[in-house]
């Protein structure tokens, strides 16, 4: 009886059955003498790791401390938001999309609502547009502060983190006062806003505008001039304009490569063309440039907020069309936020038509004419695009979100391969991905 000879486990037949003899120890002879081969190490980083910006998983091929291959694994936070919106009415969609990029909820709401409004062919009132700009720029500051705070944390500059989150808390307090919630606001609705600015909020924003520049200066004093910070960031995570365009990268990463591409300037929406602000850029194409661009954008947002406050005129914050406008104004009652007492009295005691509109809009919602639109806006992380399709019914047929974090994260390999493993952390921190937006 012949047996095929296995080089590592030869066998022979005995009276007890087949006996295998396992050999080995000849790996060097088998694989050749590659001096680096036995130094190759595959490291799995995440999805639970404090330096990966949420549930991001990295599979790194290392030779010594040099990264030869960086692969990104995502999907750990996939919640099917796009699919879910297809089963809710157009207004409810706002409450879903706001949970995608959870550091920039108001941008999600604004992008979605602008897409619905474009499908409907309606214009929102001036005051609503101005307040949208106002809250979005507040949100941009909060988002950049988290970006800087986590950047600090991941680089080991823990005071940067505590300062960043402390400053962000000021913005969240303002947003809580305006919208009722710290995040996931559902404040921007198709046709305008859920409610007007509450009394006193303008004064509080003005106090914030006085305080914040000092905090930005503190940040510069704390980090910008610090030699360790500079050496960890400079020439790390390099990606030039060509690389950015090929990989579809937008936002601060593209601007840090020198291209002043900001949708607020190049394709203005909500009247951004009437505001006076600069588009900060850097020419270093590295993590250092991205840090500086974000810091400058905080200052530019402060400028926009101030102008928005100055031009606030009294007026409606929702379209007049009673077949689209959400019927109730919200107000704070003894048991929390709810329909205002005046509205309930109106529909229950005075106007049958108002009651019908309320009932129809709340149960059925409005219909949106069939068609599709793509609306891009400049979120803190780049181009946030909403591709919304309607089949003419009360629910979206399809909502696809081009989330900047999802696209930007593709640059991980280009930024970190060939560098040191510690620089992978700096590169990813400079991308500033938000996994809620990446996985949706």
């Amino acid at each position, binding site marked *: 009886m012949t047996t095929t000879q296995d080089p590592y486990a030869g066998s022979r037949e005995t009276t007890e059955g087949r006996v295998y003899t396992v050999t080995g120890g000849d790996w060097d002879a088998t694989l050749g003498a590659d001096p680096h081969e036995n130094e190759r190490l595959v490291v799995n980083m995440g999805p639970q790791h404090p330096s990966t910006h949420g549930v991001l998983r990295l599979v790194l091929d290392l030779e010594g401390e040099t990264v030869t291959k960086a692969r990104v694994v995502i999907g750990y936070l996939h919640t099917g938001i796009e699919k879910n919106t297809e089963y809710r009415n157009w207004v409810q969609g706002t409450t879903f999309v706001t949970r995608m990029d959870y550091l920039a909820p108001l941008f999600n709401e604004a992008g979605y609502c602008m897409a619905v409004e*474009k499908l409907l062919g309606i214009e929102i009132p001036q005051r609503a547009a101005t307040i949208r700009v106002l809250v979005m720029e507040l949100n941009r500051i909060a988002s950049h502060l988290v970006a800087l705070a986590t950047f600090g944390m991941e680089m080991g500059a823990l005071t940067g983190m505590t300062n960043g989150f402390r400053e962000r808390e000021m913005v969240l307090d303002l947003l809580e006062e305006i919208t009722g919630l710290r995040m996931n606001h559902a404040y921007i609705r198709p046709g305008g806003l859920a409610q007007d600015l509450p009394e006193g909020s303008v004064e509080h924003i003005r106090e914030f505008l006085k305080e914040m520049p000092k905090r930005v200066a503190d940040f510069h004093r704390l980090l910008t001039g610090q030699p360790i910070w500079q050496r960890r960031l400079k020439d790390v995570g390099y990606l030039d304009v060509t690389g950015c365009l090929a990989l579809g990268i937008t936002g601060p990463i593209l601007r840090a490569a020198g*291209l002043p591409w900001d949708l607020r300037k190049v394709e203005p929406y909500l009247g951004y063309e009437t505001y006076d602000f600069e588009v900060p850029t850097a020419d270093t194409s590295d993590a250092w440039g991205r840090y500086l661009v974000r810091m400058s954008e905080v200052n530019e947002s402060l400028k926009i907020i101030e102008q928005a406050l100055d031009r606030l005129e009294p007026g409606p914050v929702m379209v007049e069309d009673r077949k689209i406008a959400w019927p109730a104004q919200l107000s704070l009652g003894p048991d929390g936020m709810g329909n205002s007492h005046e509205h309930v009295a109106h529909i229950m005691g005075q106007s049958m038509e108002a009651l019908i509109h309320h009932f129809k809009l709340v149960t059925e919602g409005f219909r949106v004419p069939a068609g599709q639109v793509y609306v891009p806006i400049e979120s803190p992380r780049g181009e946030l695009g909403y591709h919304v399709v309607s*089949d003419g019914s009360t629910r979206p047929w399809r909502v696809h979100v081009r989330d900047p974090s999802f*696209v930007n994260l593709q640059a991980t390999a280009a930024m970190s391969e060939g560098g040191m493993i510690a620089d992978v952390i700096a590169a990813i921190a400079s991308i500033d991905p938000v996994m809620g937006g990446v996985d949706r």
Partner: protein
Amino acid sequence: MSNDGGSNVVPGREEAGYDDATASGGGFRKGAFGVSGSGDTSGFGGLVRVEPGGAVALHSTERPYGGWFDEVTDALIEAVGQATYDAAVQRVLVDRGEITYFVAREHLLALVQALRDDEALRFELLSSLSAVDYLDSGGPAVDPGRPRLHVVYHLTSMTYRRRIRLEVAVTAEDPHVPSVTTTYPTADWHERETFDMFGIVFDGHPGLTRILMPDDWDGFPQRKDYPLGGIPVEYHDATIPPPDTRRAYR
């Protein structure tokens, strides 16, 4: 969404009470709510409505398209040649200030290459790539001959500050589209996501695997015949059905 059998519910025309003229290009929808067979006694279940075209109406726009749309179209014809353009672009739709080219998949790669590289076009950035499933969307009935899966490309020209949309339609039985990753490397993850969610196979993609769903997942979640899922919830002695089986206005 298609619990009531979707496009199969096409009633007799006399029963519905309209003639061919009003129904041209449109589809039918039965009932005011999306549920049937649930013992709905509201009386709305028998309602039949005609949908004027639905989301996938086969409209097209005649030239001139207006604005820079003509400029881009002319430059595209010049770049790829009239014969290729006629073969590649099946129809063009201008709607709400956006232009959509419906492209045959055989010519997609030649078209995107020209769109990116031609001096007069320069669509350097692929902003977004995704798909839409037009199953039972109120348009003409979906059958194997009429493609229901539309891959949608949003291209941006940073040089001229223009945006256009390309659409490639394929059937669920033959969901193959050439990959544009060689022209736009950013399409890598977009195409993986579209494969993951719609089961569209991008030929020539360097590694077409699932990206958001687990590797061993069955089915393609964003297709319209894939249920939303969920379990009924009992609350205060009443059972609330999962969202996709709830009564809802259509």
